[in-house]
């Protein structure tokens, strides 16, 4: 029993850790684009990579100040959003999806390519860029801290706290936006662009604003991740993360301010709990070794997530926070 409590504590840490912050910021960005504006961005991870590498390259390679790195990361995300949006936002939604998924994969391959090695250090990645950030912590970052039965290093705790502050500020921003007339226009664009055009709104500008805002939030997520792992490696930014963020968004409820946040926390909690819990059960012989070995667990936890999502879509398609009536309207 005590082992299961330990597994719960480990899962709790995962649900509150900087990985959850990373996923939450990706999902908040996707929520702006997909949940409110109806834009299909299948390459959110590319914005995160530019955010993380914005700091990593600026500090480690160019020797610039940490805050300049943050600005570089955000600027790079804005530029990417503009580059992707300019040609595709006048077209149907599918084109943005195609362009973003291609850009995400292309940028990752570019960053790990030999020709980019002088700047990105290729597959070996960059590290040692978070010292400026860690020294800002008001507590001793060399110590370990125990909170609710979980163990945190000082630096990790600092990244996580700042990460959740960012998440809170982002949610506040989204909340302010979606209850304003701006949010009304953006939600209407999701429903029918032509109707919004016929009422005198410049749909293109609104879609671009949503794309850029979502991209910048994704870049902030990437920065949190890079600072949390203290390294930047192109293969950390696999596009599977984009789809994990979509899953978290749908789990929490799309077009809800807190949907992506709670979805991300829950997602990491479930993944980690399934992982640790199953390992514990195998370890003390509750699950026979020849039925399931510890090496299978890593795969099985994603099977469980998939199963859970299927059940969710059947029994609660609106996610945790969504409004069932609203979701069922599409079925008409």
């Amino acid at each position, binding site marked *: 029993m005590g082992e299961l409590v330990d597994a719960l504590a480990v899962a709790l840490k995962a649900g509150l850790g900087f990985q959850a912050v990373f996923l939450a910021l990706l999902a908040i960005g996707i929520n702006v684009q997909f949940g409110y504006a109806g834009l299909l961005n299948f390459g959110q991870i590319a914005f995160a990579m530019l955010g993380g590498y914005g700091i990593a390259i600026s500090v480690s390679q160019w020797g610039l100040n940490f805050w300049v790195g943050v600005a570089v990361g955000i600027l790079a995300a804005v530029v990417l959003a503009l580059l992707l949006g300019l040609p595709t936002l006048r077209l149907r939604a599918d084109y943005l999806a195609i362009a973003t998924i291609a850009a995400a994969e292309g940028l990752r391959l570019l960053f790990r390519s030999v020709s980019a090695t002088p700047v990105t250090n290729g597959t070996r990645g960059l590290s040692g860029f978070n010292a400026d950030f860690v020294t800002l912590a008001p507590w001793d970052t060399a110590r370990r801290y125990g909170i609710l039965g979980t163990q945190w290093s000082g630096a990790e705790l600092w990244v996580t706290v700042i990460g959740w502050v960012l998440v809170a500020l982002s949610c506040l*921003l989204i909340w*302010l*936006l979606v209850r*304003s*007339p*701006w*949010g*009304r*226009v953006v*939600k*209407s664009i*999701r*429903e*029918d662009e*032509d*109707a*919004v*055009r*016929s*009422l*005198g*709104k*410049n*749909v293109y500008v609104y879609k671009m*604003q949503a794309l850029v805002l979502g991209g910048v939030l994704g870049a902030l997520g990437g920065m949190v991740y890079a600072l949390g792992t203290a390294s930047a490696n192109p293969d950390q930014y696999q596009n599977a993360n984009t789809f994990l963020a979509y899953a978290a968004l749908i789990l929490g409820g799309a077009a809800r301010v807190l949907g992506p946040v709670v979805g991300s926390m829950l997602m990491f909690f479930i993944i980690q709990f399934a992982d640790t819990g199953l390992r514990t059960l195998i370890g003390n012989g509750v699950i026979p070794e020849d039925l399931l070995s510890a090496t299978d667990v890593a795969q099985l936890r994603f099977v469980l997530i998939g199963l859970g999502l299927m059940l969710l879509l059947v029994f609660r398609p609106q996610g945790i926070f969504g409004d069932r*009536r*609203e979701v069922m*309207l*599409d079925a*008409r």
Partner: protein
Amino acid sequence: MPADHTPGQPASHGATASSGATPGASAPEHAWRTGDAPRRVAQAALKELPWEVGVAKPDPTIVVDGVTRTFGGLTAVSVDHLEVQRGGITGLIGPNGAGKTTLFNLLTGFDQPNTGTWSFDGRPLGKLAPHQVARLGVVRTFQLTKALSRLTVLQNMLLGAQGQKGESFLRALVPGTWRSQEPANTEKAMELLTRFKLDRKKDDFAGTLSGGQRKLLEMARALMSDPKVVMLDEPMAGVNPALTQSLLGHVKDLREQGMTVVFVEHDMDVVRDISDWVVVMAAGKVIAEGPPESISQNQAVVDAYLGAHHDAPLTVEEEDRVLAEAEAAIAREENAEGDVIGSETRREEDR
């Protein structure tokens, strides 16, 4: 909400539809409430006009000149000259595929023509995007109703209001800049919803409305923007007959308020009932225009709907002539296909 409540002050919505030159067009904003006798100023003004295509109107608001739009080899619209009288209801009719909706799309910026110019109140509309046309005061509805399903009826209405400060990204973050506009817009929206008998539905999702109610909502939403010209694409399609009567009443109301209405409709009873002027299109061209009573007598219109030879039996000589013409056309086409084929067939004949 602090002291920024300013009800009764319609903010930037003071500028309304009425800016016409004729006395009827400059009707006060709330004229429809007073129950005056209808002032069919436009109808009177159009009475003296000859019933011919491209005739100049006394006070045109929309003028179309030489507009053509082709899709590949098909000429969807080819209108030489068309004027729409201000403050009147102009019906646009024609068989399926006549180019009515395409003309609507061109006039409202949703599509760009291959050639031609068209203007609204003397201001050329070429190269304007749909939202720019709408901001000038030309608002349209769609043949396939576009209710914003997952927004409430009231939110649908509020979207239509123009000059909303909170629609800019940065100002949206400072509620103080836009909050004072909301009560005025909401009041206006509720007034319109009451007129269209949708006020009880204000908090329902628009997606739950029936087809006819969506048509009403779309029209009411268009009116939120205080348009000068309302373009209705088949407003009665799919609406039950009882509702049709009330929709007709609403369209007539628009004229009483001094708006110009252009509408596409297939139901001739409706067209006769409410139009001041009817424009008939067929195969992309305007083939006739005139007051509604003139249209059913017009030979070109009858031909367009029923076919040119619908009542004359085909004689033997005529049949022969048609066949001969067809053969001649085929022969011409074969000759035109080029020398290669021609020389080959000749060689085959030589053998």
